[in-house]
């Protein structure tokens, strides 16, 4: 039994089931991120943990205590909302202490707690202002202060950074991570942004269509995606997915694909999982991330299998730190990531190095990873 148990939880509205048997155990101090496209059920799940939505079946437990039917204010949780949900008519100080007041905490204690939190978040100078007078970043801090002051068992974050501009979002992301490291609190965090998910979490639950597609550490999710959805949702630019044919050549499994010139390219996969043997002489999907296709000088020295490949370049996109190169492989666009100074030109052939250690294969029917 964990600190927060989501035990076979489902949610239905009438006949429509929006969450299918979610089963997650969160340990104390963990930072769990629920990530997925809009409508995947991640916010519904968060609201169910908060008690803002009913649970159709299954149980939510915090510290072993069943929370089904318990009023949100009695769950010892705190929540930071997308819009921050600061009470517009109250000062920052009042916003922070409102929850304590509702719980009947005497004023001196409330003020003490408020000052501690304000100091922690460096918002002491804002305490007498109204939310309307604050910038986006300041509101974000106040919203976190309101959550922190309650000293809750679990923090719930509902897309807290999506209303901030790009730069502030990165700053606040680091801020949240620092806070988590310092206080060691248990956090469940909802976002649709896969970078936030990767950077913040200790574990990620990727959700789609009311199902948890995969639950794992950021590295597991990124390197060993359970299925095609997880593979393409996580990572930017997205993982390349190419139809290939598997063949045994001299005892080594090869993935065969077609270059821009119509000629066959064979990529050796000596370390492919054993299950791949069953797919010999069939069509499968090869997933390979852009950073695994490089110029030969930029290839990973520690990789076990680097395969060279020459192919025609269609488009190049210099992005400062890297240069992204688009080419056509097996009839699909495929993106490669070069060093910034790689001398690539559109319309010319170029030698690529492909790190086949990072390649994954998917069953084209079930769309799950072959492992």
């Amino acid at each position, binding site marked *: 039994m964990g600190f927060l148990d989501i035990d076979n939880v489902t949610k239905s509205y009438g006949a429509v089931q929006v969450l299918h048997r979610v089963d997650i155990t969160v340990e104390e101090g963990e930072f769990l991120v629920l990530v997925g496209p809009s409508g995947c059920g991640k916010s519904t799940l968060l609201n169910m943990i908060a008690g*803002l*939505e*009913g649970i159709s079946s299954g149980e939510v437990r915090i510290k072993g205590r069943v929370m*089904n*039917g*318990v009023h949100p204010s009695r769950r010892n949780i705190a929540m930071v909302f997308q819009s921050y949900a600061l009470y517009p008519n109250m000062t920052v100080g009042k916003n922070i202490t409102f929850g304590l007041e509702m719980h009947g905490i005497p004023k001196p204690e409330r003020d003490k707690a408020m000052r501690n939190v304000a100091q922690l978040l460096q918002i002491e100078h804002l305490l007498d202002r109204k939310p309307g007078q604050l910038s986006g970043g300041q509101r974000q801090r106040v919203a976190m202060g309101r959550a922190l002051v309650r000293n809750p068992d679990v923090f719930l974050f509902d897309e807290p950074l999506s209303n901030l501009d790009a730069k502030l979002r990165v700053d606040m992301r680091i801020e949240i991570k620092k806070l988590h490291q310092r206080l060691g609190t248990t956090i469940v965090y909802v976002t649709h942004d896969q970078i936030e998910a990767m950077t913040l979490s200790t574990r990620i639950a990727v959700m789609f269509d009311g199902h948890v597609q995969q639950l794992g550490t950021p590295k597991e999710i990124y390197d060993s995606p359970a299925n095609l959805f997880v593979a393409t949702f996580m990572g930017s630019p997205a993982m390349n997915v190419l139809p290939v044919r598997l063949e045994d050549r001299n005892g080594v499994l090869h993935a065969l694909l077609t270059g821009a010139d119509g000629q066959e390219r064979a990529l050796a996969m000596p370390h492919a999982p054993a299950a791949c043997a069953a797919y010999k002489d069939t069509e499968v999907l090869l997933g390979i991330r852009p950073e695994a296709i490089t110029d030969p000088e930029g290839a990973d020295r520690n990789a076990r299998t680097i395969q060279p490949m020459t192919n025609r370049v269609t488009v190049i996109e210099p992005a400062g730190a890297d240069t992204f190169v688009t080419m056509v492989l097996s009839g699909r666009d495929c993106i490669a990531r070069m060093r910034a100074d790689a001398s690539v030109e559109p319309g010319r052939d170029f030698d690529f190095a492909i790190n086949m250690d990072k390649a994954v294969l998917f069953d084209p029917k079930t769309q799950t990873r072959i492992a």
Partner: protein
Amino acid sequence: MADMTGSGADFRTRLQTWLPKLVLAPSLAIMLIFVYGFIAFTIYLSFTDSRMLPSFNWVGWQNYERLFRIREWNIAMRNLAIFATLYIGISTVIGLALAIFLDQKIRAEGALRTIYLYPMALSFIVTGTAWKWFLDPAIGLQNTMQMWGWESFTFTWIKDREMAIYTVVIAAVWQSSGFVMAMFLAGLRGIDNEILRAAQIDGASNWNLYRRIILPQLRPAFLSAFVILSHLAIKSYDLVIALTGGGPGNATALPATFMYSYTFTRNQMGIGASSAVIMLLTIAAIMVPYLYAELREKK
């Protein structure tokens, strides 16, 4: 917000599920009795031989059959048709024209808007009093014109059985056209300027801009204006009482004045009730589809 009724729900959570309903319940009860119950009661009375007091003696469709043979009712219905058509038509044209012109970066727009709209704040009784006198040939407009030397000027509509209903139209338009203006103005201000710029770059003239781009986008405002005005027209009572008292004779009777006089003055409650039911059906025919569409859209 949420269905949190679970068998194991704590007291606070259960309180939360029934308290809102409890708060709404008195209003619902009041509505069910004072609106829908009363409507049912009136409908019932319209099938009885009630006279001065309600009677529960069922007479079937007799009141309705009699109602449509009463001359005054037919005059009232004819008047309503004339009044509603002209009132809605003229108010819409004037309101639209004022709104379009006011939307041309007019100096003192605020003051003009205030002037156009203030009659809406007045009671129809006040409006009726003002216009009754203004249109009175002996002391009002006609008298003044003649004093100014236009000896042949006559304007006696208010005393004329054929024309009196049009004076009701004038007064009603005076009262409500500013409101229609406000509605169209809000609609005009809601149109995206970029669409208009795009149309101009496409070479549309001002005339075409209004005809092809702007007016079609005011469709919701047209609809709202129509619904509100027709509803006001069917309910019209005070204005007629104050302006003409339904006269000369019963030349300006409307269903509302008919209902009142048959029910409370002539002690023909059954007939009065049946006329009220006809009024309700007329309004419902317009309002129900409109409200239904509005509520569905919002869902």
